[in-house]
């Protein structure tokens, strides 16, 4: 196991700079750790208080009578070296430095000083100038906002807001995350350490990476070549204006857009263009196995939904699966005349969970289908159970599109997400997320 397990699996932590003032991050972070349900020991550290949020507060790290594995640090920048020195003496193994005011503010010497200390004591450090770390399997929400639901998506972000947004969206949708790590200045732990860690992490299925610049191109390629799990990337700075802004935000020197696109294709990383695509694709991959092919079968209650899906499938270079003539005649004979038997398979307003199930099970015997996309365009209660049952009985993946279903849609979507079945609120978004996973083009022949 990598050295970073002492960070994510920490059994005890101290919040240095813990505060009773609700407007301070030292209060927000400690309160989120408690609300998140952290099972390990928590030690607030602050020389000015005896109790913080009802917990006994220690004047300094060295005053804590027990071992501390992780230090979460939210103090003024110039105090950080002393705190880290103390942490080293205390035997702390990992640190998350939320405090800003380091290289990003021109204080490179101060940052160098901190790096020297962590090297001396062999401490792994996230940050400084970051939004913290959340690892749901350890119920360790040392960041904001509070996100508790466990899922398979690990988020690594060079922007605190992007990480928070993705994580919260995943929780609101009932999907959850395994981790959110805000990279900050990457003075020690960088995206490569985290990619390697989450690639091995049994609680993670897919990795979402927001990155303004890679720390080291050559090392990035070496790591990328080794990764087994899908990695979805949003790398801004695609225009000159974006590059300038990235340079101001994280001191990033970004390379050319087409070069990064080439890198992604070459190394099988999934490159996305905006937050929406980034989230959708990470969501899909955290919930499905590797999609085996591009042939999609539509089974719809909505004519309009089916038409939109056809356009999306062709437009995104996916394929409409072809049903054998034999099966077609068999199904045509079995079902009412007003059903459209084929692809799309239109159940019209007669659609109900049993019909979806019957038809998908029958069609699953076809060889030319890789993915089923049931489209639910009406409030049909019970489709979640039907799709979840079918999923257990067939080889093909199911990616659901649910729209126009009002409150029923919200409820059914939640049920499916909680069981790891992905649902998208428009045909295009469902198809686009699928298509993104096939960025790597096949070669000649």
């Amino acid at each position: 196991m990598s050295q970073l397990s002492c960070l994510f699996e920490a059994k005890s932590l101290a919040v240095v700079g813990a505060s009773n003032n609700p407007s301070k991050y030292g209060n927000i972070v400690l309160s989120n750790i408690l609300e998140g349900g952290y099972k390990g020991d928590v030690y607030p550290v602050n020389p000015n208080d005896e109790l913080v949020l009802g917990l006994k507060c220690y004047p300094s790290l060295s005053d804590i009578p027990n071992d501390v594995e992780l230090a979460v640090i939210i103090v003024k920048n110039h105090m950080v070296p002393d705190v880290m020195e103390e942490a080293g003496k205390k035997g702390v193994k990992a640190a998350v430095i939320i405090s800003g005011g380091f290289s990003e503010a021109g204080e490179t010497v101060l940052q160098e000083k901190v790096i020297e200390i962590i090297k001396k004591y062999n401490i792994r450090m996230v940050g400084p100038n970051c939004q913290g770390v959340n690892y749901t399997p350890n119920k360790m929400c040392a960041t904001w906002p509070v996100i508790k639901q466990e899922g398979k998506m690990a988020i690594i972000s060079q922007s605190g807001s992007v990480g928070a947004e993705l994580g919260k969206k995943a929780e609101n949708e009932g999907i959850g995350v395994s981790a959110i790590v805000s990279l900050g200045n990457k003075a020690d732990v960088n995206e490569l350490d985290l990619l390697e860690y989450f690639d091995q992490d049994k609680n993670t299925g897919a990795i979402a990476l927001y990155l303004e610049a890679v720390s080291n191109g050559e090392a990035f390629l070496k790591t990328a070549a080794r990764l087994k799990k899908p990695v979805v990337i949003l790398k801004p700075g695609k225009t000159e204006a974006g590059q300038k802004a990235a340079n101001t935000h994280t001191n990033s020197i970004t390379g050319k857009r087409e070069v990064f696109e080439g890198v992604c294709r070459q190394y099988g990383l999934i490159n996305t263009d905006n937050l929406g695509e980034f989230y959708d694709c990470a969501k899909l991959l955290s919930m499905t196995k590797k999609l085996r092919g591009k042939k999609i079968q539509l089974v719809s209650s909505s004519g309009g939904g089916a038409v939109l899906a056809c356009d999306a499938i062709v437009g995104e270079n996916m394929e409409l699966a072809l049903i054998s003539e034999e099966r077609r005649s068999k199904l045509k004979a079995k079902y009412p005349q007003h059903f459209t038997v084929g692809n799309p398979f239109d159940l019209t307003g007669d659609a109900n969970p049993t019909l979806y199930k019957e038809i998908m099970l029958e069609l699953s015997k076809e060889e030319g289908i890789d993915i089923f996309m049931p489209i639910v365009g009406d409030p049909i209660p019970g489709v979640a159970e039907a799709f979840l049952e079918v999923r257990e009985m067939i080889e093909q993946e199911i990616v659901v599109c649910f729209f126009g279903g009002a409150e029923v849609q919200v409820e059914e979507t939640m049920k499916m997400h909680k069981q790891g079945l992905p649902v998208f609120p428009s045909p295009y978004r469902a198809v686009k997320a699928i298509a993104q996973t096939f960025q790597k083009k096949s070669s000649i022949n």
Partner: protein
Amino acid sequence: MITAVKQKEMLLEPEAYQILRKYDIPLPASRYVCQENEAVAAAKEIGYPVAMKVVSSDIAHKSDVGGVKLNLENESEVRKAYCNIMKLAEQYGHCVDGVLITEMIKDGVEVIIGCSEDAEFGKYIIFGLGGIFVELFKDVSVRVLPLTSVDVEQMICEVKSSKLLTGYRSEKAKYIKGVVDIILKLSKLIEEENIAEVDLNPVIVREDDVYVVDARVFVY
């Protein structure tokens, strides 16, 4: 954007040819000459029609200053072209080292193959179909070094206009294997030599062969 500022220098085309030949990259037959009579002799030796290109360290874009003459069919056309190039160079005040006489390569699909350096990922290869496909549609693909033959095949297929190479309507498939070969050889070249930038444009791909017709090579 801030990039490492290293001085780079363009090689004269005969020097560029030399380095490409060392790596067995296919080039048309050529002679580098400094006199009108030598030009005529070289053209005869290569066989008509020929092309004539000015060789000058002052001129980065030869055709922009009338420094490229194509389809020269006979001795008098060669003499006329030579005088013309010298006169133009004089007009612009360019110092001329000589001219390169080359075999005319015609009737193929024009592609570009280039190499440059990225701020994050270092040396990369760029491929695209020539002319408006590159300039207007920016239809190019990129791969970073090191690359495999599978990477190269994928980068060729990836450009939207690749159908012009794989065969479209009555057009037969072109010699894609030759293009793959050039890219692999170029990647070896830039890994081994001290090269800043390469621009092979155009590379003419025909049904059975492929030639780098124009080469700009920059060294540090």
